[in-house]
């Protein structure tokens, strides 16, 4: 999306051009033949004064007007006022010289201060506006209308008027306005605005279509599942829009700094004008130096470029399907040096499968009993058993969940135990040693041991690569799992994490994270990575909670600080690159802006910098810092591309 100049900006641009067109010839004539001497005499200075004043008022009348208005509003340290004091002060000095019969000079400078200030302001506004619209265009997933299917035909309505259960039609090329289930047709959806994934998603009847994706190929009908304010597109928008409200430490520091910077510079300027002036009696030199101080007293370069940097960082991340919920998380994530992973669904795919059944007598019986106990559970392990058994199960049992151990199913006197070794031991059932890699589910029926099933899930393809990359940047990696020692060890070795903790109940994970948090130094940052399904407490407790594969999962988006919309670990390292680049550029801008300002302050105090230089220093620095901040919103390599490059 191209940034168009607003009416006000166009008017300003025209004014700047007019002022420059008038200023340049006046300046050229003045410097070559000297306007004052062309008349000569005591009142010779009045000619250049009149001409320059006319240009000054053309370019600066609004600044003068605002400055006067703001004095009445009690805004003394307002940049408009400071600019006016500096430029009008320069005029006053030049008049002073003229009246006293000295060489006429300084009118050009007073005038130029205002022209350059306006040019700088114009560019500054333009650059901020441009980057604002370029970032907002990434987030432009807000649907305008929905085609509601009613008995009387299809009408176009606002998305927030559609109720759950109504049918909407999405034509090719249109954005899906509300989350819904496809009830007719089949198509490909472009989900890149949501996940950063460029491969289209194929959907058919019965599949979910998320709002914010774009229908590519053919017309579909959706049964609306969520109201507009609950739908994926509005949730994401709300989240990203709010993200920059949460200010980082750096931003707060800059705001605080700016608060004291201006008054301090103004006070020093005042001292500089009065004391050496009174001592040496050479008032005009010292007043001039003090006026140059006022020109650099606005902290704009910092105050604009730092939040812009974070804003660009958040915008860049969202292009890759990474939602960072606040500038402060971006700042912290750049420093994260301990990564704690949940195993299932994070390092592994979580696609459990029964790989083997070791029966005491009958394998079929093991699965039959297990599926009675696991019936109705949506846990991936339970699902894998039900899939393996694939027959109708007896649903008349009462099921009790023993947290961290398994399930007890009862019907009258009939008792089925299905769970881990702890469950068996607590019922006094002796089971064989099963030193096998994978999750072992033991089954017992009426206190008799029946057998066990081994369930395993697959490692994510890029898990080892991502862990290696994090480790190479000096981070500590830890894996937490509820699995037994053997499985945990196997996965940990294959993924390459530094440490692991096995046999953890969900509550233990919180304790473990608490322990790691207590252990670390205050300058270390602990990042927990989970799938957000049942680790919300841990996500909230850790310094930074990263939830992955969250598209459509509100609970995870709610609990996490950084959300990876795609179920891919490389989001972790991409986010890290973005966070680090953001922080680097933010630091560059702080050092650069402060450095230049300080240099100008010192140079003007000792009389080596003119007011011209001060103006360039002030607005030039702001523009450079803004352009630098915009660089953050660029391209970042994800690991897969990196791997391809290596081949």
């Amino acid at each position, binding site marked *: 999306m191209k940034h168009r100049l607003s009416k006000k900006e166009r008017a300003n641009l025209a004014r700047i051009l007019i002022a420059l067109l008038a200023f340049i010839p006046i300046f050229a004539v003045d410097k070559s033949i000297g306007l004052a001497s062309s008349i000569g005499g005591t009142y010779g200075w009045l000619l250049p004064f009149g001409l320059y004043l006319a240009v000054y008022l053309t370019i600066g009348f609004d600044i003068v007007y605002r400055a006067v208005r703001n004095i009445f509003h*009690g*805004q003394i340290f307002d940049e408009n006022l400071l600019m006016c004091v500096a430029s009008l002060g320069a005029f006053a000095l030049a008049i002073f010289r003229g009246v006293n019969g000295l060489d006429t000079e300084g009118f050009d400078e007073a005038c130029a201060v205002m022209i350059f200030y306006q040019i700088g302001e114009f560019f500054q506004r333009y650059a*901020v506006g441009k980057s604002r619209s370029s970032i907002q265009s990434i987030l432009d997933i807000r649907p305008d209308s929905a085609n509601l299917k009613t008995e009387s035909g299809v009408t176009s309505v606002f998305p927030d008027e559609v109720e759950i259960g109504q049918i909407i039609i999405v034509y090719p090329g249109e954005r899906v306005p509300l989350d819904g289930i496809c009830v007719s047709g089949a198509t490909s959806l472009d989900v890149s605005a949501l996940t950063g994934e460029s491969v289209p998603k194929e959907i058919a009847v019965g599949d979910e279509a998320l709002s914010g994706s774009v229908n590519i190929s053919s017309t579909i009908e959706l049964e609306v599942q969520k109201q507009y304010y609950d739908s994926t597109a509005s949730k994401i928008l709300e989240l990203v*829009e*709010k993200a920059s409200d949460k200010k980082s430490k750096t931003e707060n520091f800059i705001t605080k700094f700016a608060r004291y910077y201006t008054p301090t510079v103004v006070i020093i300027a005042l001292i500089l004008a009065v004391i050496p002036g009174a001592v040496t009696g050479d008032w005009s030199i010292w007043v001039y130096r003090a006026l140059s101080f006022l020109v650099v007293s606005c902290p704009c370069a910092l*105050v604009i470029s730092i*939040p812009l940097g974070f*804003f660009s960082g958040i915008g860049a991340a969202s292009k890759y399907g990474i939602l960072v919920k606040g500038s402060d998380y971006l700042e912290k994530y750049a420093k994260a040096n301990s990564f704690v992973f949940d195993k299932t669904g994070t390092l592994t795919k979580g696609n459990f499968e029964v790989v083997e059944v070791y029966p005491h007598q009958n394998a079929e019986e093991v699965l039959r009993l297990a599926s009675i106990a696991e019936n109705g559970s949506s846990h991936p392990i339970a699902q894998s058993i039900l899939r393996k058994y694939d027959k109708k199960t007896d649903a008349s049992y009462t099921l009790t969940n023993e947290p961290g151990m398994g399930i007890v199913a009862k019907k009258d006197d009939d008792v089925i135990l299905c769970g881990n070794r702890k469950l068996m031991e607590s019922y006094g059932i002796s089971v064989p040693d099963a030193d096998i890699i994978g999750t072992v589910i033991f089954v017992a029926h009426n206190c008799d041991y029946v057998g066990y099933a081994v369930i395993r899930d697959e490692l994510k393809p890029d898990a080892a690569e991502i862990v290696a990359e994090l480790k190479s940047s000096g981070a500590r990696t830890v894996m937490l799992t509820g699995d037994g020692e053997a499985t945990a060890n196997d996965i940990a070795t294959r993924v390459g994490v530094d440490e692991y903790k096995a046999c953890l109940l969900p509550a233990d994970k919180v304790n473990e994270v608490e322990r790691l948090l207590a252990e670390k130094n205050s300058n270390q940052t602990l990042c927990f990575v989970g799938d957000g399904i049942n680790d919300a407490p841990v996500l909230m407790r850790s310094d930074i909670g990263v939830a992955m594969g969250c598209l459509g999962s509100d609970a995870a988006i709610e609990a996490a600080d950084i959300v990876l919309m795609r179920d891919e670990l490389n989001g972790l390292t991409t986010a890290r690159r973005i966070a680090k680049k953001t922080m680097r550029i933010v630091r560059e801008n702080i050092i650069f802006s402060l450095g230049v300002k300080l240099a100008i302050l010192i140079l003007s105090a000792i009389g080596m910098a003119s007011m011209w230089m001060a103006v360039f220093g002030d607005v030039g620095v702001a523009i450079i810092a803004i352009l630098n901040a915009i660089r953050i919103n660029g391209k970042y390599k994800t690991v897969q591309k990196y791997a391809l490059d290596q081949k």
Partner: protein
Amino acid sequence: MKKSFKLEELDCANCAAKMEREINKLDGVNSATVNFMSQRLTIDADPEDFDRIIEAAARVCKKIEPDCNIVR
């Protein structure tokens, strides 16, 4: 009650910081953020008194940057 408003003609980042500080000082405001980049004011304030608080916040914005409007 928490609500967000768009700010029109919010041109100066330093002014945004000043507004935020002043609005936070208003009676009945629990927390307020003025976001220069997204040009938004978010106010968390007493729901009973919300209209008066928004009025007061609009006055603060006008005082600091006279062209700035809260879009309601």
